[in-house]
């Protein structure tokens, strides 16, 4: 289903305009995600990061513009075309969004039950493997999400997002609500998984440490546009006042110093 001419561009967002409650949140947004990279989307509050993510995930419609994922135009895709794309991506939501009535193992096994024809033993083995890969102990598998701590819920949700071995992984604020140590471990986990499984990762984040540690490129959103896409080193030198404020604040400076 991937057309040969854009195999390396997994996501292409072009001229997207979105009006939310009378405000143009996106006013000609352009963004390209290349296969195999970890791209972070950053920006101040209200700059439309989450809205952009939701539009790419087809949870929300944009007013105009084009969004292509795996070469498929999502804004006009039929249900079946969309399903093909949906099978190839995994999403980690900010609040984990684990199904509260299912155990962790059942949560992780859910996409396998829905989209594959594997037998139950294989499904359970694969799901358990992903739970372990996400850094959870096997004993967590039979627990319900409510019985886990926030960090463990994130890991369980990551296991669910990865269970179909997607090529593309979306992470919405993966380290928010985690203590610095767990956040660091989570960053490392994501980087490791990306390296071994060859994933493409798009993450929305506020965590400047994550930007320095795991991201190949960073897209800075502001004024309804993507102001700049570059490596974090170059972005932190950028002269745009909005970007400068983001990176030159006390927290940005500390994160930078730690990485030098």
């Amino acid at each position, binding site marked *: 289903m991937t057309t040969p001419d854009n195999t390396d561009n997994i996501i292409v967002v072009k001229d997207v305009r979105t009006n939310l409650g009378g405000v143009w949140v996106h006013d000609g947004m352009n963004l390209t995600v290349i296969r195999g990279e970890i791209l972070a989307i950053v920006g101040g509050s209200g700059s439309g990061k989450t809205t952009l993510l939701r539009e790419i995930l087809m949870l929300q419609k944009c007013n105009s513009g084009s969004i292509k994922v795996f070469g498929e135009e999502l804004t006009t895709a039929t249900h079946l075309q969309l399903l093909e794309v949906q099978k190839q991506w995994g999403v980690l939501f900010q609040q984990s969004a684990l199904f*509260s009535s299912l155990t962790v193992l059942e949560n992780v096994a859910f996409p396998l039950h829905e989209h594959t024809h594997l037998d139950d033993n294989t499904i359970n083995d694969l799901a358990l*493997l992903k739970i372990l*890969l996400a850094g959870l102990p*096997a*004993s967590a598998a039979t627990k*319900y999400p*409510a019985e886990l701590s926030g960090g463990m819920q994130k890991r369980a949700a990551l296991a669910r997002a990865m269970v179909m*071995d997607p090529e593309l992984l979306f992470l919405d604020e993966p380290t928010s609500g985690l203590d610095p140590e767990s956040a660091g471990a989570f960053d490392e986990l994501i980087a490791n998984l990306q390296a*071994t499984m060859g994933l493409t990762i798009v993450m929305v984040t506020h965590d400047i440490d994550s930007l320095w540690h795991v991201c190949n490129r960073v897209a800075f959103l502001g004024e309804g546009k993507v102001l700049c896409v570059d490596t974090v080193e170059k972005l932190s030198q950028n002269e745009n006042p909005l970007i400068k404020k983001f990176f030159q604040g006390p927290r940005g400076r500390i994160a930078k110093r730690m990485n030098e």
Partner: protein
Amino acid sequence: MKKSYKEFVRYDAAAKVLVCLDEWIIVNIPVLEKELALIPKPRGEITVNGAAISKMDSAGAWLLSKWLKSGSDSNFSFKLKDFSEQHLKLLALIEEEKAAQTPVPIPKRPGMVQRIGKFTMDQLEEFNDFLSFTGMLTMETLRLIRHPGSFRFAAVVNIIDTTGFRALPIIALLSFMIGVVISFQMGNQLKSYGANLFIVDLLGLSVLREFGPLLTAIMVAGRTGSAFTAQLGTMKINEEIDALNTMGVTPAELLLIPRLLGLFIALPLLSMWADIFGVLGGMVMAHNMLGVMPSDFIARFAHVIPLKTLLIGLGKAPIFAMLIGSIGCFEGMRVGGSADSVGTQTTRSVVLAIFFIIVADAMFSVLLSKMNL
């Protein structure tokens, strides 16, 4: 062997070489498993050639490593040849995790006696919780009486509006139809005795004393009790209740007492409203079916139905209101953890409220008859 499907593995028994081909990904796992099962269990030293694998994900790596493990007898060993670096890394990662993998712990299902015991204890515990909830509400009410400053007048009015005023149309329609049905069924019997006018006695007594308040309470339990539970339960999950507590505003004064008080005021009024429409429905039916003129109906109504009947009916309404309100709020505050729990507690709230309404009604009937009322 004829191959009607894709070939993923090729095994050369003489050279002991397993060649892996094509895409080792999750959607191909069922076919892969079948093909691997056809290969005789490897012995001795075999070489696995991965040069022709075009794509491998963790499920594929898992399957390969599982197959290689399955062949382990005493002198079995394998060599991985020509795998790409990424595939090797993936295999190593899977290998590492598989070593740590223990079978999923299967939770033990408790025996029959144990389950009965647990259920009993849970019921007792819930009853105990309800008692302390009632106690908490009483203490809070007493506190509010001493410090009327933190009484929420607006919240009470809001509750009366949503639970009372907005329920007027549905309650009117429902009671009107109940009046029609009673009149119709009893009218058939009365007509055969020629006692048409006695419909007024029967209808007046049954609607004012029983059906009006009872049906209103059941309707409100379904409409308002469930809403109370769901609202409070969702607030509990969002930690809004905890937030209130930390701000020095008790949930009782802002959420619980206004709801109880609002319903306490609204339900008797709704019952009165239901009485009016129930009798009206009966009157319409009496006119159509039994030929009782509305003027005769009203004249006889005033004559045969004592005020006591209306008062007994309306007197039950505040009790019903307390049942619906306290059960609705109590179950809402018991929600914990998950969205699932909101559903369970809401169901429980409605079922328990209706159950206790009917129990209370039965107790009223017995008590009042003992008192010759």
